[in-house]
């Protein structure tokens, strides 16, 4: 399907199934396609088989927390460029500082508001689209130059 028409697939990783359910509901209302995971491990497994455009990642999870998931994502070139929005407490400066260092694209404070969620996601998807358009412009330029004698 053409990229422009495709509904963006947003993965939610959170250990609380109810939270996942409600965030998924918000995502559908904002016009996205949610992909649900209730642990970091499940999220990483699903990423291998599904095309995901953005990840909403809870920080506090048992076993593998949001930072650990983040480190795994960055290790794999297939997932390293997927924007991650991390969900943290509003004033958790240490968490945000660590997340910044790990390459988090944005943070959302709890409680999450649907409109804000939608806007933050759209901003990141826009950025990815800009990156694609930039690559396309570069390819066209290279192709036109190659044609010249």
């Amino acid at each position: 399907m053409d990229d422009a028409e495709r509904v963006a697939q947003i993965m939610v990783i959170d250990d609380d199934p109810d939270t996942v359910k409600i965030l998924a509901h918000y995502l559908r209302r904002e016009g996205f396609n949610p992909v649900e995971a209730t642990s970091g491990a499940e999220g990483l497994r699903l990423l291998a088989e599904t095309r995901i455009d953005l990840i909403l990642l809870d920080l506090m999870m048992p076993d593998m927390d949001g930072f650990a998931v983040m480190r795994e994502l960055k290790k794999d070139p297939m997932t390293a460029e997927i924007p991650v929005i991390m969900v943290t407490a509003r004033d958790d400066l240490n968490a945000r500082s660590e997340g910044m260092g790990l390459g988090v694209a944005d943070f959302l404070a709890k409680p999450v508001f649907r409109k804000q969620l939608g806007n933050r996601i759209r901003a990141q998807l826009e950025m990815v689209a800009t990156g694609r358009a930039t690559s396309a412009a570069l390819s066209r330029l290279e192709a036109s130059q190659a044609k010249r004698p």
Partner: protein
Amino acid sequence: MAFEARVIDRSYATVHSALIGEHPTIRKLRALIERVARQDVTVLITGESGVGKEIVAQAIHDSSPRRDNPFVPVNCAALPHDLLESEMFGHQRGAFTGAATNRAGLFMSAGGGTIFLDEISEMPLGLQVKLLRVLEDGMVRPVGSDRGLRVDVRVIAATNADLNAMIARNAFREDLFYRLQVVPIVIPPLRERRSDIPLLVDHFLAQARVRHPGARPLRVSDEAMVHLWSYDWPGNVRELENLVERMIILCESDTIEVSLLPPNIANQSRTADEIPEKLDERGIDLNKLVKSIEGRLINQALRQTGGNKQAAARLLGLKRTTFAAKLRRCGVISPSDAD
């Protein structure tokens, strides 16, 4: 006429600050700019105010074979419509009242170099037709003259307006748009690439040291950096640069702390749910505030107990089931938003 092409004399570092960053999109943008510089094509740069459109245009010129010839920036919004044409294309003596001598326009002054038409959306439709002709046949026609003059200029245009929307309501010529947009360059707003904010801050701090070699090295505290990272930067890179300069002047130690940040940046994450000292006429939304504070305390408890819900419930004096219900309601979900 006081309007003259500005003399551009800036260090390489300043000129390229819009392109600093390691975000994948910015890396692609740098590759595109490097490549487009070598090819003599028309470029249209779009991006919000303050993202550095002129800096990118200058970077393209500086890396192009035209680099030893003039780079002439023209702000199409800064001149009255009726003067813009003679400024751009020049005029002949007697062409209009006050035209006492012949005058070469900015296109001629940019000969062999690059002309940068900023805020191209502000160009009147009549002049758009004339610009299109210049792009098509490489001839400028001074006001009052029926003879065209050949000119060798590369055109780079920029806008923060949505030209597609303007075309739809006939405020911008579609043929000119396609002629300009041979290579489209989109510069993203800073809030879409927050991960580059620390790099930009370091860059601006280092630049200040180049300008003032005697100055002591400054760093930004982790907490202050989180606030800079979280702010939305409506004025983009330019706003960040101005802020860093301001902080350098105000800073009396070797570390820039949160206390030096302007209130709109330092308080952004708290203002919404702080208890006001005095209730003003607009009043407050008590339910929303209470829920928000409840949510913050729940988060605080979870953080302190490393996510252990039972221990967090104990800290808050709640039964485990009550806590679980509150967590669902407040922990991550905004109750006012659930429908």
